[in-house]
């Protein structure tokens, strides 16, 4: 697939841009934060997005989805990233939704996915247990118990965990933490006995939670996919979510850069626009070059998912490493170039810096991704 947008894709991009400009400007994100909104995003807006077909855009039509591809979802996510949209694409569609789609049986898919596509159900992937992304480092145990399982352990940084209706819990059914084998996915309702959820307030004002499972009894039918063999699905889910997150990051990168460029042309010191100073011009041109490369990689990774290419994991890691580094660069340069106003809470540019840092670490930072890339290449 060519690295250019088709007419249909351009139209979708335009529609998304206009919808988000009208319904979800950054001022709305600020209002959610200032109000310490108990949900952290707007359920109504999420339903509206679902009505537009966005929540289910990549899911099969038989489950209420749009049957389109990641190239299209990526355009939506990029627009979301431009406006710091907090609605639960990552948690519910990319992570939770994909886990059900890829691992779930017919009953599970029919139960969960139509509700996801309709914007009625929020999902969260309970994976991370330490302060870093390390997907096989899973100690949370699932022991056989009667006809089902008993889950005990703790998860951190569960995105949208405090508002999720259901959790996809990554648990260990055999072996030791760190091993690829012995991991099983479970679909767990959040209101069952023994699940305690604590919202954690994050620097980027996005949703995350700590979740404790204490002897949670669940039925065998809650297993998603194969027992002990969950890692294969988990890998695919993480690839898709990583590439999706990259598209969001690309939007944030582009927006932070565009805003900075506007500021450089407006802001006057010494009687001239500060954008006339070579010290700032060169750094802007360097950022431009990095962004262009990052855009190509993200576009290619999205298309690799649609084409089901064999090296999609490697491309996902490459995209994430580049997005992490580029967002870091652009976020920091933006704040510096804005000068004093850039470090005030009143100016919106700081939101992008904060999101950059969190998104960079989410699902593995650049160092993690480069290590993974090397392992995938066999060195």
């Amino acid at each position, binding site marked *: 697939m060519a690295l250019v947008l088709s007419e249909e894709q351009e139209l979708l991009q335009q529609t998304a841009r206009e919808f988000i400009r009208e319904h979800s400007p950054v001022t709305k994100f600020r209002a959610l934060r200032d109000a310490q909104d108990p949900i952290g995003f707007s359920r109504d807006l999420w339903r509206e997005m679902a009505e537009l077909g966005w929540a289910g855009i990549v899911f099969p039509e038989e489950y209420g989805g749009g049957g389109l591809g990641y190239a299209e979802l990526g355009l939506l996510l990029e627009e979301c990233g431009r406006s710091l949209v907090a609605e639960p694409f990552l948690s519910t569609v990319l992570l939770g939704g994909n886990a059900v789609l890829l691992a779930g049986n017919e009953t599970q898919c029919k139960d969960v996915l139509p509700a996801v596509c309709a914007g009625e159900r929020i999902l969260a992937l309970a994976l991370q247990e330490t302060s870093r992304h390390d997907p096989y480092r899973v100690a949370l145990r699932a022991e056989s118990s009667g006809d089902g399982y008993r889950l005990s352990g703790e998860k951190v940084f569960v995105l949208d965990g405090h508002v999720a209706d259901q959790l996809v819990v990554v648990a260990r059914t055999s072996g030791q933490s760190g091993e690829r084998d012995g991991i099983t996915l479970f679909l767990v309702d959040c209101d069952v006995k023994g699940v305690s959820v604590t919202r954690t307030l994050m620097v980027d004002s996005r949703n995350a939670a700590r979740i404790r499972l204490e002897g949670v009894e669940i039925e065998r039918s809650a297993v998603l996919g194969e027992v002990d063999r969950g890692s294969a699905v988990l890998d695919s889910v993480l690839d898709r979510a990583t590439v999706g997150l990259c598209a969001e990051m690309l939007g944030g990168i582009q927006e932070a850069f565009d805003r900075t460029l506007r500021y450089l*042309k407006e802001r006057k010191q010494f009687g001239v626009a500060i*954008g006339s100073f*070579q010290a700032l011009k060169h750094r802007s041109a360097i950022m*431009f070059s990095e962004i262009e*490369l990052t855009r*190509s990689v993200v576009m*290619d990774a999205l298309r690799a998912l649609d084409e089901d290419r064999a090296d999609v994991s490697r491309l996902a890691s490459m995209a994430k490493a580049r997005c992490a580094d580029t967002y870091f660069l652009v976020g920091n340069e933006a704040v510096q170039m804005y000068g004093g106003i850039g470090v005030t809470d009143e100016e919106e540019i700081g939101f992008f810096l904060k999101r950059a840092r969190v998104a960079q670490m989410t699902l593995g930072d650049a160092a993690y991704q480069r290590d993974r890339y090397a392992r995938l290449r066999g*060195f």
Partner: protein
Amino acid sequence: MAELEKFRQESRRWLEENCPASKRGPSADREETWGGRNAAFKNPDTKLWLERMVARGWTSPTWPKEYGGGGLSEAEAKVLREEMRRAQCLPALMSFGISMLGPVLFEFGSEEQRREHLPKIARGEIRWCQGYSEPGAGSDLAGLQMRVEVDGDDYIVNGQKIWTSYADKSDWIFCLVRTDPEASKHDGISFLLIDMASPGVSTAPIKLISGTSPFCQTFFENVRVPRKNLVGQENAGWTIAKRLLQHERAMISEMGLGLTGRPRSLENLARTYLDSPEGSLSDPILRDRLVQQMMDEESYRLTLRRSAEEAKAGQGPGAASSMFKYYGTELNKRNYEFLVSLLGTQAFGWEGEGFSSEELAITREWLRSKGNSIEGGTSEIQLNIIAKRVLGLPD
């Protein structure tokens, strides 16, 4: 699509049958040829390969056949490049005439000039060099001073060029000259073609830190040049000059792809020098740098592809060429810095025993790569152009 696939199969078969074994594959002899009146061939296959490609017009695949080209569409030329890369064929002809002057003659030259020069370029009969920089006009190229006076049907040229690539081996030179010393500096420049065999032209090679001498100083003393060798209008040469620079940058950008004489992949070299024939590489820091290089190189390649797909057919390279020139050359420098780190003290041999020819070549290329971000407009000049033309930042 089916047509293109047919062309691919035909090209593949043709290359298989016609590219001599010593001019392709990982162990190909690296002899390049630039053609020209004084072309010499150590390996007869180099000559044979050139002749066969010339006969097909594939040294300049997209030029019309009447000018010695192959008459291929852009899509076919891309297929040909892919097939040549696939079979690891060495270029049949290196040529500034093809990459820089040709496109400019198509756009700005007279029909007479095209018919005179393009076929000889395509056939590798005349080797061209570029007379742009002067001792006092480097980054400030428009400050050039080479003087030209009219004398009947001729110009009389006096002055000096510097950093003229391979001037000592070239047959003709395309020059920027000052035809109106009174006009503002961009408005008094003309684009002139000069036969290096003319009386009064002389060259002196400049030895670089790499030990090689790819550049010369070129002197002009009362050189008589027919006025019909002027390309475009008198005093309107700056537009042509800038367009040619875009083509030059596009050519230099290719260097970022590691196409310059490095048969082994970075990964392969890393395995050798880190003594890790299989499994994980033993040095975590160099391993991380290797991945960064590989990622940057692939990202760059994807961006070249995206840019080509975005550009409508027939458009020349635009301001984006500055981004590619900047990034490609910086990437190439980083590549060689990485290789030097990787080779350790084996990267520091100058000549003779104790070092493989590959190691010695890497040492020289490392030093040579330092010029990449200077020649054809420094990285700083490229960043200026991006800031002005792409980002619209004020002067």
